């Protein structure tokens, strides 16, 4: 099934433009539950009420307020909110290019695929150029009355745009002190390095599966058939031993595992 584009626009670098389409790169796999009322097992509805009087307040009557101090609100009218909306635009403007490793992972938020909308050659040429130059573009655009900043990058020859958080949202490790406590010894460091080295490999996303999601779905299917699956109680926890003896044991068992394989 081909995906539907959610937005169309013009990718703009300097005076060069490429017409593009935007697609969500995320496929939602969450097991969706609904809230039911326990007597009738029917879906519940929701409304807003005044908690003092329990009286319903309809959508037309609801006001939106910004809390400036506890219990004190500045009301923003629909006109106020409209005046704050960015000017509509069809351009994704790429202002600069930076080395990908200078963008900490914390900034990335939500990925979109960009597809060509006509100029297939320009599209793939830009993807290739980003790859060759090892750069990500910093892009700004307005979509559905909201302004976005994103990183434009090449992934397996295609263009992706990952939205970025803003500076007020990201707490950098540089703002924080190094953790207190005693430093590990050279011997411990050496063993830890060996241990981590034995577990090192290439990144392969398919190595990891959401097994819990599968287990929940299986459980639901069996329950639907009227079976009552048995579940074990949750147990808690374990004792600690000295760090270097645990490191030594870990290395030993990993080495054994490798030999057996």
């Amino acid at each position, binding site marked *: 099934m081909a995906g539907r584009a959610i937005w169309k626009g013009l990718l703009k670098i300097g005076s060069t433009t490429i017409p593009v389409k935007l697609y969500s790169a995320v496929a939602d796999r969450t097991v969706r539950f609904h809230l*039911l*009322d326990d007597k009738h097992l029917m879906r519940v509805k929701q409304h807003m009420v005044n908690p003092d009087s329990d009286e319903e307040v309809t959508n037309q009557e609801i*006001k939106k307020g910004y809390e400036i101090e506890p219990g*004190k609100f500045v009301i*923003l009218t629909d006109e106020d909110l409209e005046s704050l909306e*960015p000017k509509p635009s069809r351009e994704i403007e790429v202002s600069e290019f930076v080395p990908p490793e200078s963008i900490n992972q914390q900034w990335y938020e939500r990925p979109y695929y960009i597809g060509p909308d006509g100029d297939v050659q320009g599209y793939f040429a830009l993807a290739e150029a980003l790859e060759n130059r090892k750069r990500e573009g910093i892009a700004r655009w307005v979509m559905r009355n909201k302004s976005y900043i994103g990183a434009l990058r090449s992934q397996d020859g295609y263009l992706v745009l990952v939205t970025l958080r*803003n500076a007020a949202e990201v707490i950098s490790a540089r703002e924080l002190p190094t953790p207190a406590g005693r430093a590990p010894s050279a011997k411990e460091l050496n063993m830890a390095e060996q241990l981590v080295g034995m577990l090192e490999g290439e990144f392969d996303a398919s190595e990891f599966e959401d097994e819990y999601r599968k287990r929940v779905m299986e459980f639901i299917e069996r329950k639907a058939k009227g079976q009552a699956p048995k579940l074990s109680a949750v147990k808690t926890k374990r004792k600690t031993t000295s760090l270097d003896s645990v490191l030594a044991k870990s290395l030993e068992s990993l080495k054994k595992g490798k030999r057996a394989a």
Partner: protein
Amino acid sequence: MRPFWSGTLTFGLVSVPVNLFPANRPSRTSLRMLGDEGAPLARRYFSQQTEKDLDADELVRGYEITKGKYVVVTDEELDRLAPEKSRDIDLRRFVKEDSIPPVHFERGYFLTPESGSEKAYKLLAETMEKNGLAGLATFVMRGKEYLVAIFSDQGILRAETMRFADELRSPEDLGLPKKKKVPVATVRKFEKLISAKSKKEFAGAKLQDEQAQAMLKLVKKKEKNRSNVVKVETEEREPAKVIDLVAVLKKSLAGK
């Protein structure tokens, strides 16, 4: 402020009890829904059958198997579906930290050591940072399994939750055109453009939410003009406390 989650990070047989704190501040611009007199409103659920409001203990969670037919699943059942082992963040793979495509990243959490586990924490942080590695694991928290990458940055461990492979679409899924050979000259033209607009570093501090800033400005102006300002009694509800996340993290990293 209580940690978002407390649990155990393991590599090999080494276990490091840790606390998780959000690495992102919430948006400053969330608005409250208010009634006519300015009273903050509450969301209530009501029965379609009786039209009466329902209390929390009259609500259950159901999965729709066929139209209008639900299987009820309780919190306890969801809890019991996760074996004890799956609640640990067990680092079973280490990869070069810049080899993970950013499309996977969702949300960050700082890890702070539980008292007594500082040395093991530092050992892992130092080993990873020195070798430029990130550790990967899956674990179950609050009825959901998470794929996380653990990074070490300035001696501090940070978990980034990640989308699983099947939570990401591929160009084929979306029906994007097949890759095409393009003339070298066209690629060169873009390479030149990229070089001309290249900066040495990403300047995150410049990423300001201008819409949010404009809103705060408007709020200030309206407050000064006393237009549309309402005050209500707040005995009933706890005022929304502004949490200084950085202060919380500093305290936790200092072992307090």
